[in-house]
């Protein structure tokens, strides 16, 4: 099962099966979706464990020609950079199917679309053909539109549906223009990423072309990741989306843009990267500070999570803007951590909305007494969001700040404030408003998440956050060699690579996983 095609096509094949079944087999739709995403998850775990952390090349590679005339092929593979993302993606996809119990209408279409979306985003993370990479990402566009439109919530649903679709299409098309320009300018007649990398390493593009193309990629991908000031689609879109769609989109799909920047833009256009990084550093400050301040004012839990997710993306951008191995490594850790965190937060918020009918902070309170399990999960998620050590967000954010120190000192100082103070303020206020204080009479009968199946998605996501938080080397060790290759201009003279020192409790887990890896390698 440690086969990338298997991981990607499990959901897609299940989607096709669901399409062929008669309309009344409601139980089977859910079962198929669960099985498919679970198999993908198992496959991704095995790939992650079997990964050789020291290798820089592609592993589990598969390549089949697709459109030879344009130099496109079905080319998938993993290395240290996307193995973690793939694991996170499958985990979130499985959790998203788990929490979809709340959907009772038109289940056939729902699971079909959800699986299409899951297959698309998993494919995007393992594709090593620029074109395949793009096509897989866009596979999720129509499902997102329909999922939000059909099962979405709130008065702004219609507006949010079109806003998110148009924004994402614009971003994707700008990025596509950048990718095509790269293809045309490189003149190699191939969309295959390793080949393009070789070609451009031998003959780099002229600096002016690099600057132009990098700009296209930066803003195209940036729109997809809600780079300030192109972020307004994210909070409204997520607030209107059904829980599973918000989890998949905020958690996984949104990372596509960052992944594209790290995988494509940085290594192929190093000179272009240099010329844009200063601007990016200041824009990401917009994400961190502005997103955080807006989050502070929200009275709707979904909008708060959505805005905080905009803020968290700022750290990933900051890591990229540092153009250093440490910073980019941090950015990837932030991507994974935030994927888990966003999925977890939206899952809790979705549960609250389903059982309480509202997620307005003014109407809630004291729920920790009625819902101790969910409350505990949410409080831990909020702590993770503030960047508390022990959760995966901490090493990620710390590494981005360390990495960016040399290049963007002012930004780092301001961002650190944003991270520590603003995030703490809105997260703690949300905790107080939701869980503490007197329990209103109407919520006295509120049901906590009971039963292993209901708790499973929360436990999985939180568990992954803690494991990667305590043992960040699981992620950073395989990342380092790959990132060092992708960010060639990175290592500044005199700067020593920061060793991501893991807290002591992580040692045991790490040792265990490395032992497993060695065993598998054998």
């Amino acid at each position, binding site marked *: 099962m440690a086969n990338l095609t298997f991981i990607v096509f499990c959901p897609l094949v299940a989607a096709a099966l669901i399409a062929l079944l008669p*309309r009344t087999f409601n139980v089977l739709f859910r079962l198929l979706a669960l099985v498919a995403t679970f198999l993908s998850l198992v496959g991704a775990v095995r790939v992650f464990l079997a990964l050789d952390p020291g290798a820089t090349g592609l592993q589990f590679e598969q390549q089949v020609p*697709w*459109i*030879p*005339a*344009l130099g496109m092929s079905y080319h998938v593979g993993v290395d240290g950079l996307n193995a973690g993302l793939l694991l996170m993606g499958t985990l979130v996809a499985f959790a998203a199917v788990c929490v979809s119990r709340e959907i009772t209408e*038109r289940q056939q*279409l729902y699971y079909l679309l959800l699986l299409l979306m899951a297959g698309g985003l998993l494919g995007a993370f393992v594709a090593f053909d620029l074109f395949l990479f*793009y*096509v897989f990402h*866009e*596979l999720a*566009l*129509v499902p997102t*539109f*329909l999922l939000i*439109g*059909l099962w979405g919530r709130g008065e702004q649903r*219609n507006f949010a*549906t*079109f806003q998110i*679709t*148009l924004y994402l*299409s*614009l971003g994707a*098309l*700008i990025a*596509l*223009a950048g990718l*095509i*320009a790269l*293809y*045309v300018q490189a003149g190699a007649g191939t969309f295959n990423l390793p080949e393009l990398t070789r070609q451009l390493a031998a003959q780099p593009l002229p600096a002016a072309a690099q600057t132009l193309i990098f700009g296209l990629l930066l803003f195209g991908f940036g729109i997809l990741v809600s780079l300030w000031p192109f972020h307004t689609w994210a909070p409204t879109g997520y607030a209107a989306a059904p829980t599973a769609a918000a989890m998949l989109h905020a958690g996984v799909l949104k990372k596509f843009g960052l992944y594209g920047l790290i995988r494509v833009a940085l290594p192929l256009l190093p000179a272009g990267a240099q010329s844009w990084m200063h601007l990016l550093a200041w824009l990401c400050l917009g994400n961190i500070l502005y997103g955080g301040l807006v989050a502070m004012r929200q009275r709707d839990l979904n909008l708060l999570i959505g805005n905080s997710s905009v803020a968290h993306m700022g750290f990933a951008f900051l890591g990229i803007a540092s153009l250093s191995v440490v910073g980019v490594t941090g950015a990837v850790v932030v991507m994974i951590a935030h994927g888990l965190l966003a999925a977890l937060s939206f899952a809790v918020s979705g549960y609250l909305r389903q059982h309480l009918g509202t997620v307005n902070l003014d109407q809630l309170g004291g729920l920790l007494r009625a819902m101790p399990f969910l409350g505990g999960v949410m409080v831990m998620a909020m702590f993770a969001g503030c960047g508390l050590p022990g959760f995966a967000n901490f090493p990620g954010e710390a590494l981005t700040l360390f990495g960016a120190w040399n290049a963007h000192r002012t930004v780092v100082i301001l961002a650190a404030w944003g991270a520590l103070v603003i995030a703490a303020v809105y997260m703690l206020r949300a905790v107080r408003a939701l869980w503490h204080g007197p329990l209103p009479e109407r919520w006295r009968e509120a049901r906590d998440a009971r039963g292993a199946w209901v708790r499973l998605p929360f436990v999985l996501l939180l568990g992954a956050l803690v494991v990667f938080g305590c043992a960040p080397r699981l992620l950073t060790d395989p990342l380092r060699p790959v990132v060092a290759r992708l960010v060639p201009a990175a290592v500044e003279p005199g700067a020593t690579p920061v060793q991501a020192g893991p807290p002591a409790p992580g040692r045991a887990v790490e040792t265990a996983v490395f032992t497993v890896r060695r065993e598998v390698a054998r």
Partner: protein
Amino acid sequence: MSDVAVIGLELAVVLTGLGVLLADLWLAPAPRPRLALVTAAALGLILLASFWVPAEPARTAFGGMFVLDGLALFFKRFFLLAALLVTVLAREFAAGFEAGHVEYHALTCFALAGMMFAASAQHFALLFVAVELVTVTFYVLVSFQRRRRTALEAGAKYLILGALASAFLVYGVALVYAATGALDFAGVARSLAASAGNRLLVTGLLLVGVGLGFKIAAAPFHIWVPDVYQGAAFPTTAFLAVGSKAAGLVLLLRVLFEAAPELTARSGHLLPVLAGLTMGYGVLGAIPQQSLRRLMGYSSIANAGFLLVGLAARNVAGVEAVLFYLAGYLFAVLLVFLVATLVWGGAEGDDIAALGGLGQRAPALAAGLTLGAASLAGVPPLAGFWGKFLLLKAALQAGAEDPALYTLAAVTIVAAVVAIYYYFGLVRAAYWGEATGEARATTLTPLARAGLAACAVGVVGLGLWPAPVLAWARAAAAGLGF
């Protein structure tokens, strides 16, 4: 004799039309509706037969007036497929016509013959005759529902503006002849190369361009489109959007790159500006539309703009993109019109709001509409996406020589995003629009199912395996002599 062999496909089409017309006289009324199936089957056979016609080497007939090369063959297959699907559409629409069902199919065949001749034109006389054959047939087809006032209005508008365009066209041809003494494309190209800047000749060619711009619905010759599309019956609108536009386009390709390559090479910003205007007008006009056919009319203008991007690139990649774009466009447009026929039938109006609840009462139709609209919007992995992708690629390639193409690529991206807005509006109406009371129950005939399946397979298949059609498009485009 050999001349007749070269135009065998066209002859077969004309004979099909005549045969159907005669059979209508002899047959009893009861089996007459089956003539639609006969027509479709005959067109299908001719389409199959076309694959035995070799594209290489190119053959000419009638003293070089007519050519059978890769480009011609590509378009002939395109037109045959379009007419085949339109016949299916017309069969499903039959209840909407009061009478003359068989005449409708015969006229479709005659228009098809005109389009197929257009694909092979090497001579301004053949160009004019082919265009007139198509246009005059469409005068009848547009107002075929003769009791519907909007259909009559559309027919009158199409007649007047079509006649105007024909006047431009024939005037242009006359000027070209006056300036060069030749009407064949090769001769005109030679004169153009010899006497660059002959104003009479340039004016003549520009007027020919105006006439063809009318056919493909390019701004500023698009005024007729929304009204005529709205008034005509669904099959006619579909055939106008696909067949008539492609016929104009193949003639434009031939004139631009065979009759006047030298003029095309120094046309400067004319084509990019026209492309940008057409796209912009189409997408902006489509936003507020309430009627499906009117929306498709504006979308047809926008698509003419997208196609012009490929011509504006003035390279082989651009022509290749145009050909592939048309192939994807054919399936997507016919899919949308097939769904529309099954939803509205011959009803007077076609309010998009009436799609409400389609996702519940007819999931197959809603899925078909979604596929068609998504492909038109250019969402991967559907056929329409490849068209837009290839066009962008061609424009960016050409940008190295003419930076105006970079601007045009930017306009294309913005227009594509706006297009997503109105196409997805259709999807929204089908899935979460308010169900209206008048919704008809829809039962699909086997023919309708087959048509829907064929178009859906075309849209998805061209998206997943574009390589074969891309190879055909490339071979066909290579014949234009870049």
